Every structure is written in structure tokens, then in C-alpha cells.
């Protein structure tokens, strides 16, 4: 409930938090401003004081997520710089971050169902660090005959599919099949399978990622 004594910034934060839960449950199209206001116990007019439209509210929910963008700088600075090293490092950072936010994962799923261009682009951008790193690195490694020819875009899709599914299985479906498996260990195992699938041998790449 949003009480009258809330400061504007607190009220705004509460609206965003409630809207995020509703958008993650029902998607953008499944939620109305009236419903968000009802859940908050305020009139729609109060909501419109803070956000011009439902679209603006949804955009702000996404903006908040974007502002929490994971930093991968430390991984690069502290790693030897090999493709495997870096991919493993950034994946663990991403997984640790989004696994704490199942609503975010649900929003990603809802976005896929709704097929909106704007949200598709937003969620695609969140995966760009992985898809770009994989495509670029595999191309260079193949050019140096260190792996066989691999379609980088398809490999990136394979990787994304594996990690997404692991996150959904553990954080949304809570599948009993993987109940005894720690998310980090599951992801690590999947990364190992991915490397085998693309013919990449980590031990033969001690920090000589193409530059």
C-alpha cells in the first residue's frame, strides 16, 4: 500500500516494484494501470502523477534493470584473458545477478510471448556481451586454426538457450530434476559441454584471446 506520507521518491520506487511484479506475472499487455493502482491501494491519478502512461512505467521498470547492468570489467582484469576464462567468468556474474531476481526472468519470458520489438531488443541487448564474445572469439579462433569452423551465431544461440533454461529450471520452475544441483555448478557443467560442442579446449588457450 502507498500511504499518503510517502515521499515522492519512495512512492515512485513502490510503484515500480509493484508494477515489476505484475508485469512479470502477466506481461505488459496483461496488466492495466487500474490494476497496478488497485494493488497499490491508490487511484490511477496518483500513478499518472509519476508516470505519463503504462508504457512509460514499463520503460522505467526496464531502465531500472538496465542501470543494474552487471560489470564484467573485473573478470577481464583478473583473468588471463582466454576466451574460456572470460566466458566462464562473465556467465557466473550474470547468473548470480539475475537468479536473485526471478521477476526479471519472468519479464524476459513474457516479452518472448508478447513479441514486442522494443522489449525484444532490450532483452537481446542483455545477452549481447555473451553473443558478441562467442561470435567474435570463435571466428578468430577458427581463423587461427585453433578450432574447426563453427557458425558463431548458432553457437551463441546454443549457449544462450542452455543458460536461460538452467536459470528458468532453477529459479522459476524450480524443477525437482535439478533440485540437488547447485545453480553455479549446473552452469559450470553446461559451459564445459558448450566448449566441447564447439571444439574449444580451455587448457590450450592460456590467455591468448584474439585482439
Amino acid at each position, binding site marked *: 500500500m502507498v500511504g499518503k506520507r510517502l515521499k515522492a521518491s519512495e512512492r515512485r520506487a513502490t510503484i515500480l516494484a509493484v508494477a515489476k511484479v505484475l508485469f512479470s506475472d502477466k506481461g505488459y499487455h496483461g496488466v492495466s494501470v487500474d490494476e497496478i493502482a488497485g494493488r497499490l491501494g491508490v487511484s490511477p491519478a496518483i500513478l499518472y502523477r509519476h508516470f505519463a502512461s503504462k508504457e512509460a512505467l514499463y520503460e522505467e521498470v526496464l531502465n531500472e534493470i538496465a542501470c543494474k*547492468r552487471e*560489470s*564484467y*570489467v*573485473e*573478470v*577481464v*582484469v583478473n583473468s588471463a*584473458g582466454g576466451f574460456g576464462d*572470460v566466458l566462464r567468468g*562473465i556467465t557466473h556474474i550474470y547468473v548470480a545477478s539475475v537468479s536473485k531476481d526471478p521477476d526479471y526472468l519472468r519479464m524476459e519470458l513474457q516479452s518472448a510471448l508478447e513479441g514486442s520489438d522494443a522489449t525484444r531488443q532490450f532483452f537481446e*541487448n542483455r545477452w*549481447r*556481451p555473451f553473443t*558478441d*564474445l562467442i561470435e*567474435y572469439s570463435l571466428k578468430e579462433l577458427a581463423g587461427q586454426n585453433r578450432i574447426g569452423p563453427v557458425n558463431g551465431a548458432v553457437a551463441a544461440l546454443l549457449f544462450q538457450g542452455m543458460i536461460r533454461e538452467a536459470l528458468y529450471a532453477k529459479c522459476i520452475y524450480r524443477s525437482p530434476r535439478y533440485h540437488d544441483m547447485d545453480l553455479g555448478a549446473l552452469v559450470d557443467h553446461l559451459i564445459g559441454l558448450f566448449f566441447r560442442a564447439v571444439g574449444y579446449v580451455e587448457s590450450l588457450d592460456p590467455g591468448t*584471446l584474439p*585482439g
Partner: protein
Amino acid sequence: MADFDLELDARGLNCPLPILRAKKSIQTLSTGQVLRIVATDPGSVKDFEAFCKQTGNALLASAQQGGEYHFHIRKA
């Protein structure tokens, strides 16, 4: 005369690639030499600030021009 010793074109690349390539490029420089990086990822501004803070290299300049971000980093 250019005010840098090596230029890295990181346009079109998203983190961590610009940082990764910068790290490798800096390894080829001697202390005091300057690497210029051109990037298009808006996140690169924060990323190169963090990179310099963590590596001890000096971020001499960081500027936006059109849709591009230019960085000058002096190797420590």
C-alpha cells in the same frame, strides 16, 4: 603528430570485448605510452573508468562525439 601511440577500434563491440581488446593492446605498449580507443557501447564509459581504476593505468581523456566514445589511456 598524434597524441597517442596505438589506436584500438572497438566500434560495434559490447562489453567485455572492448575491455578485453584494450587489455591486450596495452600489453604491447611500454610504460607512458598512450592507447586511444574508439567505442560505440554507451556502457564503455563506466567500463573504462573501472578498468583504469583496477589496473592503475591513467584515463587521460574520455569524450563523446556523435555516437562514439573516445578514450585515451596511458600505460602505468
